[in-house]
């Protein structure tokens, strides 16, 4: 049991570390075997995940003295470990066929496996310390993968923005860990709701900030736009299915804490709903396919976050799994077209679906599922969330419904762009077998995951309403494609200017402060030290000129006085006898006068 619990994350972590270490040692040879090793590791990982989901192992990890740390596969984690490993396998198969031979495949696959391992630790961690460790490692892997083609300064800068933005959110987890120690004397996730009053709210605040940051919810959404600079398999795995969903997972995990604090659940629900709405509008206004998918990811995760705040954990989990299948499918399709046609622009992708039928058909399934078309997966899961939300709060429900309408709109627009009749023949490259292989599997998952849940649910009028809305919007988009500029307002096209606000509001002031403090350090603090040194030298010079001269001068003056007195004493010694007679006469006269006066 414990062996399985360790083996689950250990397999990808060790395999990834070995691949990374082998890259500088073996060079080209490592690159040749890397795809095989990584796909095998991924399949092994999937098998162990499925076993773990059945067996439900739990292990204790010795970390800090006096604080329990461990990993456990429970109901929520079981679903997610299977999802993570399955999507990772699909993406790695795609990547085996996607990355050109010249690229550093060992490094790529090593980083992807390390990421998968840390994601598995994240979804199974039972305490804040281990969670934070895996959380940050995911962020670092994301950085390394977005900046994979590091010769390009723009990609490297994008990687930096993504890493620093998520790290800013992660500060909340550090804070939460400290407050958890203060409030509960433990770091365990289960005991968080029992914390004492001010600490509990602080823990909740910290966790919410970290989760919103990692899941690219408002106001952090801009980093996901920048993250699209990475290779497409990276976007498919990290920035759609797994890492960005980790924030939503965390919120679902700490549901009891959010409910205990009250305000946290409301805040989370509204953050999710508003993100779903506004980022849906952003997605509608994008011209680049990956940007549409990125904005759509933010919006769909908004539904998961909404579920964590106002609906049930099961609904949120279902949405997470369905979205993972749908979004990774869409990203892989986009990646296949990017490799074949060399562009991601929606205008230039005209008719791409007709040229590559497998990709086109699977992409269509994914897009229709994204739109919420019955009976595909996201229709059921989204409605599960919205119907529970409707019972809690009408405004939230309206916002959620509007967000659902927008998702149908942008999904339809995307679909239309790739299925329209192509204007000209253009480049026609084949899409490799490895690239096509995962797509049908993901398409089946995207389509059927909803049907699996359907028989257990009672068909409420909400289901019918949302289904009808989706159909209506799709039909509308097909007739009137919303191509005019009016439907792409500048704020939406520029991701609500979030990055510009972050840059002007945070980055520039901090840099200015840093420069000012550096100048202060050199001129004032070090200046004081230099002034002390200069003062010492001046005091030394002063002592030498004034004091020493005076003291020495006194000594010299005494010596001169003694010499003068000596010179004066030598004056009477003339050697002339008449002067001696004169001196004797004067002296005798003085003596006589003194003797007379004394008497």
């Amino acid at each position, binding site marked *: 049991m414990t062996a399985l619990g360790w083996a689950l994350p250990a397999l990808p972590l060790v395999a990834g570390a070995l691949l990374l270490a082998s890259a*500088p040692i073996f060079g080209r040879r490592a690159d040749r075997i890397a795809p095989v090793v990584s796909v095998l590791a991924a399949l092994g990982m999937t098998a162990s995940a499925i076993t773990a989901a059945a067996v439900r192992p739990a292990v204790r990890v010795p970390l800090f003295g006096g604080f329990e740390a461990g990993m456990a596969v429970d109901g929520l984690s079981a679903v997610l470990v299977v999802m993570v490993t399955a999507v990772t396998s699909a993406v790695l198969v795609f990547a085996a066929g996607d990355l050109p031979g010249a690229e550093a495949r060992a490094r790529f696959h090593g980083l992807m496996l390390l990421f998968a391992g840390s994601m598995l630790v994240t979804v199974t961690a039972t305490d804040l310390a281990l969670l934070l*460790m895996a959380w940050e490692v995911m962020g670092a892997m994301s950085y390394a993968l977005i900046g994979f083609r590091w010769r390009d300064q723009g990609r490297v800068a994008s990687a930096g923005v993504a890493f620093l933005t998520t790290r800013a959110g992660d500060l909340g987890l550090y804070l939460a860990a*400290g407050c958890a*120690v*203060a409030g509960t004397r433990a770091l365990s996730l289960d005991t968080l709701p029992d914390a004492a009053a001010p600490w509990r709210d602080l823990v909740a605040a910290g966790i919410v900030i970290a989760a919103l940051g990692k899941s690219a919810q408002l106001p952090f959404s801009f980093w996901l736009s920048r993250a699209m600079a990475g290779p497409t398999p990276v976007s498919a795995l990290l920035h759609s299915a797994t890492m960005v969903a980790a924030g939503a997972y965390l919120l679902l995990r700490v549901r009891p804490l959010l409910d205990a604090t009250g305000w946290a659940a409301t805040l989370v629900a509204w953050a999710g709903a508003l993100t779903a709405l506004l980022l849906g509008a952003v997605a509608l206004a994008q011209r680049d396919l990956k940007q549409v998918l990125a904005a759509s990811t933010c919006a769909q995760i908004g539904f998961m976050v909404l579920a964590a705040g106002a609906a049930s954990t099961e609904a949120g989990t279902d949405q997470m799994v369905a979205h993972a299948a749908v979004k990774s499918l869409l990203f892989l399709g986009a990646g296949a077209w990017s490799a074949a046609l060399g562009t991601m622009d929606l205008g230039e992708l005209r008719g791409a679906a007709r040229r590559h039928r497998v990709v086109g058909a699977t992409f269509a399934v994914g897009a229709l599922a994204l739109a919420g078309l019955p009976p595909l997966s996201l229709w059921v899961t989204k409605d599960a969330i919205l119907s529970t939300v409707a019972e809690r709060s009408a405004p939230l429900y309206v916002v959620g419904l509007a967000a659902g309408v927008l998702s149908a709109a942008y999904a339809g627009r995307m679909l239309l762009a790739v299925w329209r009749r192509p204007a000209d023949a253009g480049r026609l490259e084949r899409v490799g077998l490895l690239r096509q292989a995962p797509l049908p599997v993901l398409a089946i998952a995207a389509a059927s995951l909803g049907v699996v849940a359907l028989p257990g649910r009672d068909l409420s009028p909400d289901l019918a309403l949302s289904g009808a809305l989706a159909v209506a919007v799709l039909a509308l988009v097909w007739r009137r494609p919303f191509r005019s500029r009016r439907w792409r307002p500048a704020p939406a096209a520029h991701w609500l200017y979030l990055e510009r606000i972050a840059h002007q509001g945070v980055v520039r002031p901090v840099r200015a402060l840093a420069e000012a*403090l550096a100048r202060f350090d050199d001129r004032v603090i070090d200046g004081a*030290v230099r002034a002390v040194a200069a003062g010492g030298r001046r005091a030394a010079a002063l002592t030498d000129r004034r004091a020493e001269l005076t003291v020495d001068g006194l000594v010299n003056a005494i010596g001169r006085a003694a010499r003068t007195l000596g010179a004066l004493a030598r004056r009477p010694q003339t050697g002339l006898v008449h002067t001696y007679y004169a001196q004797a006469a004067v002296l005798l006269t003085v003596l006589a006068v003194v003797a007379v006066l004394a008497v």
Partner: protein
Amino acid sequence: MTVLSLTVFLPLAAGLALAATPRLTGRTAVRAWIAVAALDLALVIAMWIGHDGGGLGYETRLRWIPSVRAGYHVGVDGLSLPLMAMTSVLFLCCAVYSLRLTHRVRAFAALFLFLQTVCLGLFAALDLLLFFVFFDLSIVGMYFVIAYWGHGDHARSALKFFLYTFFGSLVLLLGFIGLYLGSDPPTFDMVELTRAPPLDGSPGLAALVLLAIGIGLAVKTPAVPFHTWLPPAHTDAPAAGSAILAGVLLKMGTYGLVRIAMPMLPEAWRRYAGVFIVIGVVSVLYGALVALAQRNLKRLIAYTSVNHMGYIVLAVGAAGLARDAAAGRLAVTGAVTQMVSHGLITGALFLLSGVLYDRARTYDLDRFGGIAARAPLYAGLVAVAAFASLGLPGLSGFIAEFQIFAGTIGTGTATAAVAGALAVPGILITAALFLRVLHRAFLGPPGELTGGVGDVHPAELWAVVPLLVLSLVIGVVPRFLLDVIEPASAAVLSLVSR
């Protein structure tokens, strides 16, 4: 002659032997140095294995100056053993790195062996005068390293380093004398002073003594605003010298706080813990921000040292406020772990920056770019060291910093919680500045001087890799280190809470 005294004085004996054989070639001298350093490390590891939980081990006590009850008293416990191990590892790696040295190699090796004795002796010392002697000798040794093997404005930097830290050590001596006079019967022995804290009944005097000791150690740590000797000393020192200066010498200050100030002046420490907390937070944020603005790689790393030492001062300050033993223990353990971790990581960073100077004779980041194309191994090592320094989990920095933050905020008091919350953004600023280093110099398109930067030589590689591997091991399986530190930090905490 006990194992401990042998461990401490073996390098000195070897250094004297090296100095006394004028016909030795440079290469042979370094090889001898490496052998001695490896033997010393083996001795320290043997002591580690032989050390059992509890208190002091391998104690030796000899009469030295009976009239002031100062003796040659040495011993190791959970605080000093990890630091001695880190010292030995770092000196060994500097020895390996120096295989590429060409200028006055024999004298360099002898001087470093002398420095190794001094550093090990300080961590093993259980007598205040003995501690002070080693403290001052370290300043003397490092002065000569910077003055004779440095570059740039090295004479001036060495002088500034010497005068500033020597002044600090004199203030420290004042504090030690205060402790001596305040104890009854007057003694310099640390164990006796810890058992019966001096100046128990006179809080005013205790505050003054704490002030003196605090300033003396603050100059060495270095804490803002006594830190300005550090950047020029680092920039102009040779790579191995900077590594030892940052890795070992800076720890003498914080070690003194945990070994001397906290146990011997518990009441004063508890009363003035807020001061240390404020100094810690200011050092963290100030060091990180000023580092962010630097263009010179070594100056940048020097300021990150100010930042990292600030975490330690913050943690030990918060431990003084701790109402909860678990949180206080976490804070002190984190502080000691940070001492070890920072030594390894920053030592590696300085050795790596030495590679840059060796190839291109400059540390200016803006003149490089895309080094990873010509020197992928070098870039990989710098990336690992940079991420270790910014506190990425999986490496030792995170283990230390997480414990510090959790322990500081977890003490339960508002002061410590706010201070911890203010200090946490330090890791974000550190991340930003290290990413800037990577992006500016190692990634992206090639820069002006990139052509001259060849990849690491074997000596440089095998000097840095052990440090980073050790940091990785501590980051992934920290228990072997924490098992040694935790009993000692629990002891310190109980002493402070008296």
